């Protein structure tokens, strides 16, 4: 079995035809300002966590948007929810709500006691 090349190709493209885009739609319904992001990177630049580790809110948000969830839960766990990103965002994106909801959407551990 040599589908080695195929694997490489698969991991290197975002296949929007098969990606699950519904998860983002649900998050965006809860945090409508998420749709306003113009990917300026101000949030990533100011990020407190980013000072210590490669963590990129803007990029991970985009990956999430495009249904590329692999490894994202772990990434979002790096966020300290400090809120600096929200303060520098020129588009008024409620980044904390966005992170919180993406984190919750990826979470299958049933974090909360209350009904969603």
């Amino acid at each position: 079995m040599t589908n080695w090349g195929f694997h490489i190709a698969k991991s290197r493209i975002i296949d929007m035809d098969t990606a699950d885009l519904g998860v983002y739609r649900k998050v965006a319904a809860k945090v409508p300002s998420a749709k306003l992001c113009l990917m300026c990177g101000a949030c990533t630049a100011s990020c407190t966590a980013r000072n210590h580790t490669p963590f990129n809110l803007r990029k991970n948000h985009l990956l999430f948007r495009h249904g590329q969830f692999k490894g994202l839960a772990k990434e979002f766990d790096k966020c300290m929810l400090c809120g600096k990103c929200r303060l520098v965002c020129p588009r008024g994106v409620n980044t904390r709500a966005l992170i919180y909801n993406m984190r919750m959407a990826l979470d299958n551990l049933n974090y909360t006691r209350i009904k969603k």
Partner: protein
Amino acid sequence: MKFHPFVIPFIAGVVFLLILIVFRLKQWLKGLDRKQHFFVKQNFLSLKTLYAIVEVFRESLLHFKIYRKNPVLGYMHMSLAFGWFMLIVFGKVKSVLYAGSFFEPMWLSIFFNFFVTSNEPYPYAAVMTFLMDFFLLIVLSGLLIAFVKRIYSRLVGMKKTTKHILIDRIALVALWGIFPLRLFAEASSSALYENGGFLTAGVAQMFSENFASIVELPLWWAYSLSLSIFFFTLPFSRYMHIPAEVVMIFLKKWGVKTNEHHSGFTNIQLHACAKCGICIDACQLDFAASQKNVQSAYFIGDARYNKLTEDVVNNCLMCGRCHEACPVGIELTMIRQQYRNKKEMPGKLYYNYVDLNGYHANVDIIYYAGCMTHLTPGIIISMKKIFQAAGMSYWFMDEEKGVCCGRPLRQQGFVQQAKDLVHKNLRMIHGANAKLLVTSCPICYVSFKEEYALQIPLMHHTEFIESLIDDKKISLESKAITAVYHDPCELGRNAQIYDAPRNVLKHLNLKTSKCEKNNGLCCGSSLSNAVLDLDHQIKVRDNALNVLLEKNPDVLVTACPMCKKAFTHGHKVAVMDIAEVVAKHLNEVKTKKQLSEKPEMITFAK
């Protein structure tokens, strides 16, 4: 024996109610955690119980706190609760006087005027009859206010009144029925047996003897039934707040505290809410940002009936205004926090990536600006200037690679993650061997104070600057600038720092504002609310700005980077942090002299 079948519904109601209350009480007490149990056992037989009884009298019957907040509302609660209580007490006294024994049947006092005619004299009959009618009148007057309040809540000075669920409505109708029915039942009996007082006999004038004999029995039946319905519905309605508040007062007096975990004490407090709606009127999310159904009264109601949704739990600024206003003294912010808290996962570490090596020094002061303060560099350079002026060496702990204090995580319920950060920061703080920790961010301040077991003293920069002025390490030039100080929620209601900033700002012409100190408003940017979008944050901010700027100050002074940012973006007035004001008005001569004596700042690289 005096008996009539119409007393049966009443007796059934009373028995049912007593059984349910005992059952609930057992459940609640069982739900207390170990520490809370300990306090109950410890203080059960102590003077504290006596204090609790006094407090129950003051708050559950006389409702002093509500009276102070809103006299009309206070009178309403007082007349209903205290009036009814007195009716029960004097009713009992009256029937004991009549029967000559304490063990007369319990319904005798309730339906006395049906059973005892003027032909059966007993001691002090006239006085008793007068007192009973007097308190009935008091209750009825309260009822009238309650009725008016339901229809025109503004008349009693309330903007909002809570919505009721079905069982509440049934209980309410039954409750409202009790006293008018009692009045008419007693009046009909009075028309027949001439046993009424000034009120009942007065009403009896309207009854012909014939009419009275037709309506008498049905009225007493109706009275008994309304009592019965009220007692049957009480445990499931909001009126459960009456017994729950009593229990809460006892537990509080015994030293039981609300902590971060949901417990039986939480349930007691959930039930102790009277749905008075005072908290709704206090909430800026309601009156400034039109966020409906999220205020504490609704939150508590939803929690009680297990209908709570994440949006309600999270859509709160945790500003503490409702907590401050609640006449029952329910610890609203802490309870909401309990519902936000996520399950902890033992052993899981989230922030292993933070590298602490090389962060410490021997200095006077550790300065922790806080994440947000990095976006208001004006505060940071002012603090640097002040440290230098005071001739103190410091280590700027989060200058390059700060770690968040953990409070924002905690407030969103990520307790375990927050603890992880606390641990990281603590190691750095204690590694530095300093005498004092100073922070510029009230959020960090509360976090350090409540979540960190700090071994060195902690000050917010307002307190620090105050101490520098007191110790004559710095002095400020007087300026003819008018200023208004805005109390940040965290520094004010949460940390109770009200005087320090006002003392520091004495060199200006400091004006008061309508909403200050524990009545201060939120700037809208509160980190605790991750739900509110920018447009609504702006509404909260503009509402606060309008109040703060009523006296047209030259400058609005605050002590929180978030408040500063929010208000600055309001474009209405110059906004300065208290540190910036101080740095700007430092007495220069002294500053220079001290600068030469002490070394410059110490910067640390990894």
